[in-house]
């Protein structure tokens, strides 16, 4: 599904952001990517969705060889992924429904199917009643749910989440996290970058930890931890 093999990433002015990172995420897995700010979490995600070029090594994402991906094929890769950010990245001048529909229109989906699919994912994230609301009329947690709905509407095999709860209060954080777990339970792999260790401890999922660009810990080698939280 996602496979990093000896990946290095250097920024022109920022030095080495990733040093010899290798890991493999299987289909349907839920993986936390942890580490301090600047440890390279976001960089890993950016390499996955081809926002940044790989300096050396191999990155494979659901059948795509990302390091050798041509520019015109990048959109095809992204349509297989769902991406969620800390700052939601919604279009302020469109309603929740339009924001979600946008991700489908971009792919050239048939118009007749768009409305139904949009309503289905909005229902899934619990926002069917607020389909006509604009982002500024929604709380942070609700905005993130719209963003998640947008990420889901193309039925991705992997959901990438970069600090999805970073801007949310505790209650909204719990709700969004639970939503991500539900999504994972229905078969979608989730790669979630976070430095919220409370969340990490709550769930029995695999943890990959980065420190200054190097992978220093991968719990897949260890015993699964015991703090399994019930859904």
């Amino acid at each position: 599904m996602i496979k990093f093999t000896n990946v290095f990433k250097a920024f022109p002015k920022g030095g080495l952001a990733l040093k010899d990172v290798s890991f493999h995420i299987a289909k349907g897995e839920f993986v936390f990517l942890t580490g301090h700010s600047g440890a390279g979490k976001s960089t890993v995600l950016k390499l996955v969705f081809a926002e940044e070029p790989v300096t050396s090594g191999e990155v494979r994402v659901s059948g795509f060889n990302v390091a050798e991906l041509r520019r015109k094929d990048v959109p095809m890769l992204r349509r297989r992924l769902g991406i969620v950010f800390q700052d939601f990245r919604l279009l302020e001048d469109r309603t929740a429904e339009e924001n979600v529909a946008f991700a489908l229109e971009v792919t050239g989906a048939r118009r007749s199917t768009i409305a139904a699919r949009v309503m289905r994912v909005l229902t899934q994230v619990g926002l069917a009643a607020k389909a006509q609301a604009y982002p500024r009329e929604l709380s942070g947690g609700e905005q993130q749910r719209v963003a998640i709905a947008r990420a889901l509407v193309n039925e991705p095999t992997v959901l990438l989440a970069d600090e999805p709860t970073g801007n949310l209060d505790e209650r909204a954080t719990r709700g969004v996290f639970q939503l991500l777990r539900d999504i994972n339970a229905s078969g979608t792999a989730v790669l979630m970058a976070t430095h919220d260790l409370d969340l990490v401890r709550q769930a029995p999922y695999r943890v990959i930890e980065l420190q200054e660009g190097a992978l220093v810990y991968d719990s897949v080698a260890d015993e699964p931890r015991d703090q399994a939280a019930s859904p």
Partner: protein
Amino acid sequence: MNLTIREALLTFRRAPLLSALSVTTIAFSLFVVGLFGLVAVNLQDALRGVAERVEIVAYLLPGTPIETITLAEKDIEAFPEVQSATYVSEDSALARARGELVEFRDVLQELERNPLPASIELKLKPRFRDAQHVNDVADRLRGFGFVDDVRFGRDWVEKLDRLRQVAAAVGLVVGAAFAVVAIIIIGTTIRMAVLQRSREIAIMRLVGATDGFIRRPFLLQGAIKGMLGGLVAMALSYGAYVLINRWLIQAAFFSREQGIAIVGFGTLIGLFGSAASVGRHLRRV
């Protein structure tokens, strides 16, 4: 395609102020080009009026048989440069002189013998009314045995040539400068529209929009803005033309083709300006 049109039109609704500003900027840039165009068009008209008077007169030797002249007239009319060749007999030359030179009427009245020679008067086709061609034709006329002398305002034709060259050079340089300024201003305006939506473009890319998909609404929108700007510029130019006509001088307006050319120029700048701006933006992100 429907989506392209919808997105392009939505921009006008979502950012009405910036859109109006773009159209206004484009309109005024093209208005300057249009005003200059009006000057050029009228100058050209004036020059054409002057060139209308370029005329070559071949004076004929006295006693040339009329049959010879008639044949020669045919020959001369067949010259590619010649628009018309008119035979003026001695008598009609005198009659004309009596009519035109009123102050010499008495002198002309008392003549015992007509001193005026017969002639063939030539007008050249508009595009041949320059020194080079006038000289050519004059030389060929001198080749006819019965032609005594060939006259044309040599100095005058040469000055006209010079004037035309200056007008063309100034027109080209100033016109190009105005056009370049218009392109730069319009390009900047369009770039603002692109930057204003850079966040949206980033999000579109994130959800898997192809470059073409992102680009198309901008191109359409740029073309529409350019066209609207061009139309407004034509309206402003027409207003200026009406005012000039009423208060200053009798002037000419653009022909339909020239008007379409200016609006088309605006449309193309809008289109290519957008293509360049979006292209540059997409390459950088």
